[in-house]
């Protein structure tokens, strides 16, 4: 007995990408193993850690809780797509570097995408809001203090960018 296969096409970081996969292929596995975009990480596969967060049509979702077939045709942004157009670090990425917001870097892609989406909604968070913004993602290395600082720094950098 072989599984039914489906062609799934996504606009990933602005580029149309497709692959033929079974219905049960998780979006996280689709991105990582079918499209070989391994920036999106998997820390739990039950929707709790947030490492697999990607933006689907601009909204952060946990790619380990979605089947690839259910988002066929969507626009997806992964951490690879959070750079500036010239390939340099985007504002959230740069903020993490400035503030030592990462250690092992495994959780980081999920934070970068989450914060990117958050700042679109709330470009000028307070310290407290910055902490709330990342309260759904797990990090085992940093103790979060520098990630909170990264959120605030990213907001600054983003403001500078949009003023330009």
């Amino acid at each position: 007995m072989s599984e039914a296969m489906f062609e799934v096409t996504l606009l990933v970081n602005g580029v149309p990408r497709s692959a033929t996969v079974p219905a049960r292929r998780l979006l996280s596995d689709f991105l990582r193993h079918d499209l070989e975009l391994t920036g999106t990480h998997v820390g739990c596969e039950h929707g709790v850690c947030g490492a697999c967060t990607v933006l689907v049509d601009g909204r952060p979702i946990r790619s380990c809780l979605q089947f690839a077939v259910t988002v066929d045709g969507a626009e997806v942004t992964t951490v690879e797509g959070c750079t500036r157009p010239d390939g340099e670090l985007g504002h959230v990425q740069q903020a993490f570097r400035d503030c030592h917001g990462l250690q092992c870097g495994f959780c980081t892609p999920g934070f970068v995408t989450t914060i990117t989406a958050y700042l679109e909604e709330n470009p000028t968070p307070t310290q407290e809001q910055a902490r709330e913004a990342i309260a759904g993602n797990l990090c085992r290395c940093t103790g979060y203090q520098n990630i909170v600082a990264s959120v605030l720094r990213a907001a600054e950098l983003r403001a500078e960018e949009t003023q330009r």
Partner: protein
Amino acid sequence: MTTAAFGEPIARLEDPRLLTGQGRFLDDIGHQALAAAFVRSPHAHARIVDIDVSAAVDVEGLVAVYTHEDLDGRVGEPLPLLIPHAALTHGRTAYALAKDEVNHVGEPIVMVVATDRYVAEDVCDRIVVTYDFLPPVVGIEAARSAELLVHDDVPGNVSAHLVQSRGDVEAALAGAPHVLELDLDIERSASTPLEGKGVHARWDADDASLRVYTSTQASTSVRAALAARLELPLDRVEVIAPDVGGGFGVKIVHPWPEEVVVPWAAIRLGREVKWTEDRREHFVGATHERGQLQHVEVGFDDDGRLLGLDVTVWHDNGAYTPYGIIVPIVTTTQLLGPYKPEAYRAEFFSLYTNTVTVTPYRGAGRPQGCFAMERTMDAVAAYLGLDRTVVRERNFIRPDEMPYDHGLIFQDGRPLIYDSGDYPATLEKLKKLVGWDEFEAFRAEARAAGRRVGIGIACYVEGTGVGPYEGGWVKVETDGTVVAATGLTTQGQGHKTAFAQVVASELGVPVERVQVTTGDTRRFGYAVGTFASRAAVMSGNALASAARKVRDKALRIAGEALEADPRDLEIVDGVVRVVGSPPSAPGSSIPLATVAVLANPLRYAFDREAERATQFGGPVDYSKPPVAEGDSPGLEDTGYYSPPRSTFANGMHAAIVETDPDTAEITILRYCVVHDCGRLINPRIVEGQIHGGVAQGVGGALYERMVYDDAGQLLNASFMDFLMPYATEVPVVETDHLETPSPLNPLGIKGAGEAGVIPGSAVLASAISDAEGFAITRMPISPSDLFSLRLAQESR
């Protein structure tokens, strides 16, 4: 422009890759590999009666199914016991795939290899294992009572029993004006890195060689283990730790069952095979730590000076002892912290239970030791009505007593001798940082507002940088790039940056020029591993030594080229020049890149650097060989660092907590850290280590516990139920530090990796006790635990 190197809080060199999704973690490698999955025991203690694979064989995509019967040669033997000890009289290790019996839920029994992980798991679901159930031993009390045994041939469930002492404790206790007894209890937690384990293996039949990627803290040692188990020559096996998503101790254990059978299957099948651990597997198939019961008897005088301290520890080592008894040894030796009781005796029993095996988790037994000692200090202070900091201060080893010999044997088998540290100064700093002397005013204010607050303190000393050695290799390439390698591995500590800072400083080059490789046996074959806060001390000093040798050689060659005395030369910003000469004064300088070219008398020149070097090619002495005897081509060298013994870092934490009078909710209002880890290579990285450690300490104190039921089922084997702290649970950490350089190594550094986590349970127990007015003796503590304790206190 030279980027300042050693001691500067520079941004990390590894970050751009990791931030843009270009990291290569284990599961990012080998997209074409076959996938392995495991059938694991759902029972805590059982005999395997039958394994029936008949329903599985026609699953499309299945490649192979293996059980213990298939494991040939040494692969079928019990896994190695890494650190034997004379006291470990009954060490036991598992088989790579269970043979006849399983001893904890999660033990691997069958390996399935298939075209992808989905299919491999389908196959696992169809394999039927029949068991004969055996009653499980769960919890330390059950193990200690020994009514049931984990291993039939281990009487009393005792794997090891060890007593260490200094002085006559019995006499000291008998003669002490005051004696107190404490019973303490710490539960299990685990390293729980965000990336689980994983192995990828590729057999090259043409080359008869094996390449293994594994998410490990000890690639050189995995290599040696694999060569031995797979019966391959060592030089036909290469092991690489790719980017590793956190370790915290769990990944120092090796070889894991999966680390043996995945490469074994890759060779057998002639195909790439990969296994990536999922979260549930990590909870039940990796390792845990911390679980101990402790009994303390302490005798002291009217001033609170400790005369005798007698500690007994019952340590839960889980189902097997692959990593020996390091954890209880560390507990019972590091328990002493900054104090010097006149007589000390520590005894431990390491006990088997039918639960996941116990191996070091960041702190490695120190948090438990610190808990015992600091609860004792608080008890003494409370008994005598003295300030808790005063009692501690009176028991401190003074700076002028360094080096201080405890008369015990440490985890490395060497004498427990503290090299340096200034404990009174550390305490002063901490009191100032947290506002210790002003706290009573704050308490009164809070009380008036109907709030309940408390302050706690805990001190620790941490043996870091244990031997035996690490090595480093440094090479200047002909384009001026400096490549360096060390064998130990990296799991987020920023080694590529910190080690680049060390090399850049020694060599006199910009830090961005230095590219460091860690944990790749192709680049450096001799290493021990990353654990016990040893990487910076060991590889830092080894790389410094290698860089100094390269520097000497560069000066010698440049001296010949410039016709100058090497002693008059310096290297600044990647250029060798006569000391003090202005940049680019003709004939007084030569780029390091050019020196690298001159260091290698090549027959063919391919690049511009080689052409440039020809201008320095002075008259040739044809009576001598091009490469002098004892010399070697190239501007590179290797250095090792092997310490006489560990170097001891120290620190003190203070916390202010608020406990809700009604709901017993516990909130940390402030968390202050003062630490001393000698000279800092990169203060920003050290600070990050402290933050992360504190978060794990807070997790272990207030949230994390492995909950086993009587049948040995781990009830909370997921991130939904095991409460790892989110940002909302971790306090802001306020830090200050001292720098007491270690006299034991040239760079004067001490380890910092574990510091943050050690006093977590101790300091929060101290603060909660202070808020509540009764002593907390069990950690972790949840609001409902605290609520029950309050009820029990009231009914007293």
